[in-house]
């Protein structure tokens, strides 16, 4: 495994949690349980327009809210928080809504103390993995693009010089070394040059 993932269980007391829920019995149960678990926490209601930056995890009551409003609230922060949706109904339109806002976990009303910790940890882990996968996907994508570029450049060289693939690659690498550049950059230059040259031919 690559970068060490932080341990959601170990880090639980470092979290800043926000409860966005009308102040009723469910909210009280939830706030008390978050307090027992030992996180830093605050309560806000009604849902503010923007999410203050310090919160890593939010519990949000999605009842009578639109996906658009919820999404704009959650994404108002540069680093979107781990999101736990609190739902009153388990019907398909509510479930659709929690998918749409990208919730990482769900709590059912009335909220009970048991289950809150598991839900927070599942959400935390799911969110962290999601972020890690996104990061890795980005890395793999750019790697793939680079490989594609070097391949294209290799074929250009093979065509122009009548050399083998291996020789073409060695050429690119040698160039990269002498120019203190990367194989991708050299490949990009070759592709650019080729396109200019072929365009000239057209004229």
């Amino acid at each position, binding site marked *: 495994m690559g970068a060490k993932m932080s341990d959601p*269980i*170990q880090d*639980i*007391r470092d979290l800043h949690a926000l409860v966005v829920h009308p102040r009723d019995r469910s909210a009280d149960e939830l706030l*008390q*349980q978050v*307090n*027992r*678990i*030992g996180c830093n926490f605050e309560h806000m209601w009604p849902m503010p327009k923007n999410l203050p930056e310090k919160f890593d995890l939010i519990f949000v009551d999605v009842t009578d809210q639109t996906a658009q409003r919820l999404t704009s609230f959650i994404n108002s922060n540069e680093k979107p928080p781990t999101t736990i949706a609190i739902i009153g109904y388990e019907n398909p339109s509510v479930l659709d809504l929690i998918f749409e806002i990208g919730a990482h976990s769900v709590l059912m009303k009335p909220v009970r*103390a*048991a289950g809150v*910790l598991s839900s927070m940890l599942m959400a935390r882990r799911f969110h962290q993995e999601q972020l890690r996968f996104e990061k890795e996907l980005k890395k793999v994508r750019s790697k793939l693009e680079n490989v594609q570029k070097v391949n294209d450049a290799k074929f250009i060289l093979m065509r122009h010089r009548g050399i083998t693939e291996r020789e073409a690659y060695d050429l690119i690498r040698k160039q990269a070394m002498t120019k203190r550049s990367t194989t991708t950059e050299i490949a990009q230059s070759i592709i650019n040059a080729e396109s200019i040259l072929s365009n000239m031919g057209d004229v």
Partner: protein
Amino acid sequence: MKSWKVGLLFSEIGVTSIIERSQLHGALLAIDRINASGGVRGRPVEPVRYEPESVTQRYGELAEKMIVEDKINVIFGCYTSSSRKEVLPVVERRNALFFYPTLYEGFEYSPNVIYGGACPNQNSVPLANYLMKAYGNRFYFVGSDYIYPRESNRVMRNILRQGGGEVLGEAYFDLEAKGADFASVIDDIMEKKPDVVFATVVGQSCIEFVKAYHAAGGNGRLCPIASLTMNEGEIDAIGPEASAGHITAAPYFRSINSPANRRFLKSYEEKFGSTVDVTSCCEAAYSQVHMFAKALDETGELETECLREALLGASFDAPQGQIKIDPDNNHTYLQSRIAKVDETGEFVVESKVRRAIKPDPYLVFPAIHDWSFRTLKVAASGRENE
């Protein structure tokens, strides 16, 4: 005259009967004392007892029976976490009030439960600190195979790591384990020579383990067995020779020399003839019944919401000292003491924390250097004077 009926769910038969009988006695003694002084609002408290025979599922079934058939709303009971987990859904569904007078692994909160025993921050952390200072930091873990020992060892391993220590071995045994079953692990202990054996074997198997350790040449004065569950009851059954030198951390020990404890022991002896089986869990049951009675005196009814309101934040001058129910989490502020068994088989308190520790049932990683867990050496006489 109508009585206040309460349910008692402790086993006098089976693997955890030693400790549960001691809890039952604690509860019965408290009820006696309450009734002797006129009951609650002039009405006596009437215990209704069933025998779960140390069989996990029976606890849930009998709790249901108490609530449905006997119309009981307040139950005291359970030793193992697995039996508590059976009772929990029943009392929640029926909205009854359940008093659990036992140390456990934490990570639970139910509005229907009042937790009277220590959680790890109240006993494991002070114990680990003490052991590392007094004996060294190479530990060997031996436990019964259920949730409490495993979680308890997780906490211990973590504190140990913070103190630069190591776990040389870890083994779990069936609750029914006999002396011979421990042979190979005791061989391993003898070979690896840890500084401390941390044992979370409970009930009858604890007795079997300590005896087998002694028989194999294990010496408590050199490498003690340290435990959170080895109480006066077990020590009595093990005998002084095999148990000398071993260590236990608990909120209460029989040898505490305070007026409240002397009164408690005196009345215990009058009722049961001897105090050999008085343990911290017995004291917890005794104190919880008293706290319930005080709350009932205030509310005048057995309804769960009312009683809970009266109980949260309530304090009591228990045999161990002042205790208080934490309104944040329904657990109890408790004293924390560490005691060593002397050559007569009595626990001698070696050190204690200055004041009752706030329960923190959701503490994942206790910090070894937390000042609130620091214990103070008790005067050389060994007996506490308060």
